[in-house]
């Protein structure tokens, strides 16, 4: 890890854009979205103080992609190196989750792996968390400490750029003329900002202190009717799973083109009624509340049991996207209260 200083972002992004396609945050209404960076337009570079609205999975696992062509196998798509600027700790942790699924040794998803290998990650610190951000209660921080090639922290008169990989290290060495030394005082400034943001998160999420692991809270809710209650207002739009950076369910379907057949991969959602239905009609998740329960069990229990990390990074996107008013924070809080009551009753006995 090496830290350097740069006064403005433009020279850094211009240099990256000379080498590969670069995606940067752009404000759209009250949210940020990614758009392709074009140095020629001279548009001001925006530093996103908070995660971009759309999930990073779009870069690695597109909404819809060609998975197979036959009778003649398709040539694998040519993926060129690309860079994404403005990813946050929650985004990087969501990539860690996706890596577990799509890059696992036994069965690699060749499309994901190709994109992942070609991705250059420029992360940045958060300084203005949204009301829905709950990363601090789910192992996250408003700044990244790993999982990036470069990380950019905004300070008073410029930016601290830190390297986090060999690729990042090489980049800084190769373009050393862009940067100056980052003395301790600047790193001190950065750390002050980080502490401030962390405190803000802790304050706003003070009520989400469960006093016990979230896994335990969710795992013990098998018999709870909180899911049925909370799902009452769900309109089954599936936005929560589409926008979730770790949700990775997909649907494989066959199509017929003029001179070939194809298999397509398309995002799917476990909140969909027929998601788990089999041809004979059996469906373990017929009831909406059961689907909500399964979604949370997967995120906080099953994935953790299987891969050793939670499948929720606390980015809060599902809360922002909710059209039906189902709030992850409320569900977790109610489950936690229920568990406390249960344990109290047990002690009383």
């Amino acid at each position: 890890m090496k830290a350097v200083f740069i006064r403005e972002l433009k020279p850094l992004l211009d240099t990256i854009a000379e080498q590969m396609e670069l995606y940067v945050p752009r404000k759209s209404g009250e949210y940020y979205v990614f758009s392709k960076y074009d140095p020629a337009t001279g548009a001001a570079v925006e530093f996103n103080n908070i995660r971009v609205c759309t999930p990073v999975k779009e870069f690695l696992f597109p909404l819809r992609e060609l998975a197979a062509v036959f009778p003649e196998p398709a040539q694998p798509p040519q993926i060129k190196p690309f860079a994404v600027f403005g990813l946050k700790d929650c985004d990087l942790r969501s990539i860690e989750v996706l890596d577990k699924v799509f890059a696992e040794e036994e069965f690699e998803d060749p499309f994901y792996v190709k994109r992942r290998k070609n991705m250059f990650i420029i992360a940045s610190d958060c300084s203005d968390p949204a009301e829905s951000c709950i990363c601090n209660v789910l192992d996250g921080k408003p700044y990244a400490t790993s999982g990036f090639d470069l990380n950019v922290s905004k300070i008073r008169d410029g930016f601290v750029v830190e390297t986090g990989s060999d690729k990042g290290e090489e980049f800084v060495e190769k373009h050393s003329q862009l940067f100056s030394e980052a003395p301790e005082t600047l790193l001190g400034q950065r750390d002050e900002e980080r502490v401030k943001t962390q405190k803000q998160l802790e304050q706003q999420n003070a009520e989400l202190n469960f006093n016990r692991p979230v896994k335990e809270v969710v795992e013990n809710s098998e018999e709870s009717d909180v899911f049925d209650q909370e799902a009452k207002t769900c309109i089954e739009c599936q936005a929560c799973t589409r926008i979730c950076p770790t949700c990775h369910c997909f649907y494989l379907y066959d199509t017929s083109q003029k001179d070939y057949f194809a298999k397509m991969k398309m995002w799917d959602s476990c909140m969909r009624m027929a998601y788990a239905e089999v041809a004979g009609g059996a469906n373990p998740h017929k009831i909406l509340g059961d689907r909500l329960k399964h979604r949370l069990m997967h995120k906080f229990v099953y994935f953790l049991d299987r891969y050793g990390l939670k499948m929720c990074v606390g980015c809060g996107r599902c809360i922002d996207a909710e059209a039906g008013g189902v709030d992850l924070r409320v569900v977790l809080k109610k489950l936690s209260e229920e568990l406390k009551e249960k344990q109290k009753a047990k002690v009383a006995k």
Partner: protein
Amino acid sequence: MNENPYQPIDGQVVDIIDESPTIKTFVVAPQEPFRFATGQFVELTLPGQGEAPFTPSSSPAQAAKMDITIMKAGRVTALLHQCQKGQKVGIRGPFGKGYPVDDLVGKEVYIVGGGVGLAPIRSLFLTLVEKIKDFKSVVCRFGARTPEDLIYKDALFGTWQKIDGVDIKLTVDNANGDWKGNVGVVTTILNSDDVNIKNAVAVVCGPPIMMKFATLKLLEFGFPAQSIYLSMEKNMSCGIGKCGHCMIGKYYVCKDGPVFTYEQIKKYPHIWD
């Protein structure tokens, strides 16, 4: 295995056998060498139309052609039932872990099957009888809705009955005039002295409701949960533990199953739904 796990290999339907009014066996010849272990499943693609998971019903020893017994149950299977000999198909797999044949050596194997659930069981049965001396006995209790719904009739009433070390009993839920055997669901022909439970392993495959009650009966007999092997039918799609549709708790049925011991999955909700 193919570098792209979503890419099927070519295959062709070389024969079609009518088993019952709703069930046919498709003999499929893969166009390149294809091996599977008994109990593993394949994804069979009808090009441009869709794919569905099936456990081959033939012995893995018969490598050039595999039998796939299919009940008309949904969209893809209905289309498959309309196919003729010569139909081109795609095959992905094999997927999953299959039956633990090595763990059955020296044991009494107690096989409970129902309906089209006899398909995976036929593959296991043929695998076992190839080395029948390795197993203490193979005791089968099979059921179907009506006599005409019973599949593999020639084997069930003929060749399989004659194999030393094999004991087969059949039942149907509803009988017509000619049926001389037992009438009742499959649990009505299960008896605690069919096998010596201390040295037996049970294998169950059939419709969910039958699997549930057969499992409960076996537990009542004293079978430990880890000695009951269940072939779980869930919505297996990708086959490689990624797409999520077939999850039972932390398990992907496609990758960790489709055969599980009851011990592995009993704590999870809706396993029979």
